[in-house]
């Protein structure tokens, strides 16, 4: 095992210059690019892609916000400016297949770009990982053991209710040797973390409680030591909720790809 430069991140521009096509474009998203916590998720996923030998590429500096928060806050003009610019870039590179670790980017690219001329096969990283596990390309064995650990998965609205992806992240987690426990409100009835629809970017309206605290209380009630998420906004909201409850010493919040990377010892 070499310690240095084991993993590489090819950009679309490099690949195109070399006259090559990746089998999949990894859409990193703003949180995956800039948010310190979620950068670790990006890196975990990139290491898995490297490890399995997937020929992938990222847009890097050519990537821009999909426009999801703008559209949901009501700024349709800004959303479409972003969408049309992104579609020009993606179509110029003749992109066919996109994977992303952000359910908001996933939903926007998959459901909202086609009408503006961007038609791609879009999958969420949990579905991608599920595929790799099912094909036997990810063998979860070398890394740390999850024996005796208890994991609960928090459904992201834009992965679950919005696109009916409920099993993929759970399948991925079941590849670990941990106990999976579901919260009371799951899948189609899952409770939001409180961040969607532009809420992440402003203070909540006056109320009696913060949504993420409500959700974390529900997660803690399962007795889980790990809250698994598959969305950058959920990651922040759930982590803040755990801190709010002063449980950050005993309860951790991880993305599904981080758990797989841990399990694989990457």
């Amino acid at each position, binding site marked *: 095992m070499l310690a240095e430069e084991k993993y590489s991140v090819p950009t679309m521009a490099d690949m195109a210059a070399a006259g090559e096509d990746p089998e999949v474009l990894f859409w990193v998203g703003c949180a995956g690019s800039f948010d310190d916590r979620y950068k670790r998720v990006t890196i975990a996923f990139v290491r898995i892609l490297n490890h399995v030998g997937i020929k992938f590429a990222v847009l890097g500096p050519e990537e821009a916000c999909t426009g999801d928060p703008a559209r949901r806050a009501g700024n349709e003009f800004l959303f479409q400016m972003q969408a049309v610019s992104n579609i020009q870039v993606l179509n110029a590179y003749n992109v066919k297949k996109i994977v992303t670790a952000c359910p908001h980017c996933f939903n926007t690219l998959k459901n909202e770009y086609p009408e503006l001329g961007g038609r791609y096969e879009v999958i969420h990283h949990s579905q991608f990982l599920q595929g790799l596990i099912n094909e036997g390309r990810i063998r979860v064995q070398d890394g740390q053991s999850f024996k005796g650990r208890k994991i609960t998965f928090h459904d992201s609205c834009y992965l679950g209710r919005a696109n009916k992806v409920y099993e993929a992240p759970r399948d991925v987690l079941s590849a670990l040797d941990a106990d999976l426990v579901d919260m009371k409100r799951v899948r189609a009835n899952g*409770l939001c973390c409180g961040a969607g629809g532009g809420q992440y970017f402003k203070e909540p309206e006056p109320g009696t409680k913060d949504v993420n605290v409500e959700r974390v209380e529900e997660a803690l009630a399962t007795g889980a030591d790990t809250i698994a998420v598959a969305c950058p906004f959920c990651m922040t909201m759930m982590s803040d909720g755990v801190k709010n409850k002063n449980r950050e010493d005993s309860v951790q919040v991880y993305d599904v790809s981080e758990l797989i990377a841990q399990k694989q010892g990457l």
Partner: protein
Amino acid sequence: MEIIQQILFVAALGVVAWFITKRVQLISRAIKLGRPENRFDHADERLKTMLLVAFGQKKMFTNLLVGVMHFVIYAGFIIINLEILEIILDGVVGTHRLFAPYITPIYPILIDVFEVLAFGVLSVCVVFLCRRFIARVSRLQASRHRELRGWPVSDATIILTAEIFLMVAFLTWNASDSVLRDRGVGHYGELQGVVPDFLISQYLKPLFAGFGDRALVAYERAAWWLHILGILAFAIYVTYSKHLHIALGFPNVYFSDLQPKGEMQNMPEITKEVQLALGLPLSTQPDGSQANDNGEQSAEIGRFGAKDVEDLKWINLMNAYSCTECGRCTAACPANITGKKLSPRKIMMDTRDRLEDIQKGWKANGYDYKDDKSLLGDYITPEELNACTTCQACINACPININPLDIILQLRRYRVMEESQAPAAWNAMFSNIENNMAPWKFSPSDRFNWAEQVNEVKF
């Protein structure tokens, strides 16, 4: 005497038909205030959805017990209507149990089924009243939900009480009729040997043992008339009530959204602006499967988003008239659960209230009348709109596929694009996206810096 009854009955039918026609015209006129939108595509998929969700009440069974109870009322309503056919014919023609001689073998079985259902409906209505006033189911309490104060609670109580009353009238009518038949009074006696006792009403016969023949005939007539007039009055009442869902629930589900819940509808008029702004050739109508404005690009650009009901789509307005105010949306809403002012049910009720107010204006001042109110501001406040996380729990929860989020989004669009009234933090987010290609204040040239750490991070 008979002929007078027949004349009165036909007159009653006529009056009711006239009233209901008027109401239906008014309501459809109000729904047509909405913007056009093609919801006639994918007929097969729509039909399937309507069979499952409306006729099969699939989403009501999320809570099994409540689903079963509601289904009893629904089945009772549909099936007992077959008996209404006989009652109406009897009323018009002046006969008594018109069908009995013609379908003698199966007639008692039919009435038995009606009676069992009537008893079921009665029981469930009692349970539903208990759920509201004794068990105090949270989503039905005006003390917890301001949109229920006043009329909505009375409306619900009137509906349940009226249904109990109608079923009691139906069952006691059968019982008094059975006693009259046994005694061989007048034309009642003619059904001896044709019609036996019925499954439920046979146990009510002792109630009438002490009645004299004339008193019994008076009761039988009164029960018959109250039952049918009650049904006719209820039919009119329904058009003013949340109970309108018994009619509109079906088309409402048929025309409901087919696209994934997370997909927000495109605004083609904005696409044109964007193409102009970016110096791109103007595209024709997008050819996506969700063509959404009947393919017509109007020359004049209306408002961006919605300020009032006529800016919404007709389906949003049909949604408002279909809403039964059950509050499953609000009970699932993360904003409402955590004490914010937003309640998806209130969004729907406000939309209907606005339409009803416009109707009142029409009635008083003619169809050209415009008041100075609007849905946004006078009925729904920005604070409510700003609290929505767009999580779609409300859409998922609605048993008849109402979409409150679609209204919230259109009102938000108006706030942001026409009034420039987004919360300050959102304006900051907008300008970051515009200038930095991300909702935060990072330099876009740093977007790929994470890759430098790809070999350093420890897991």
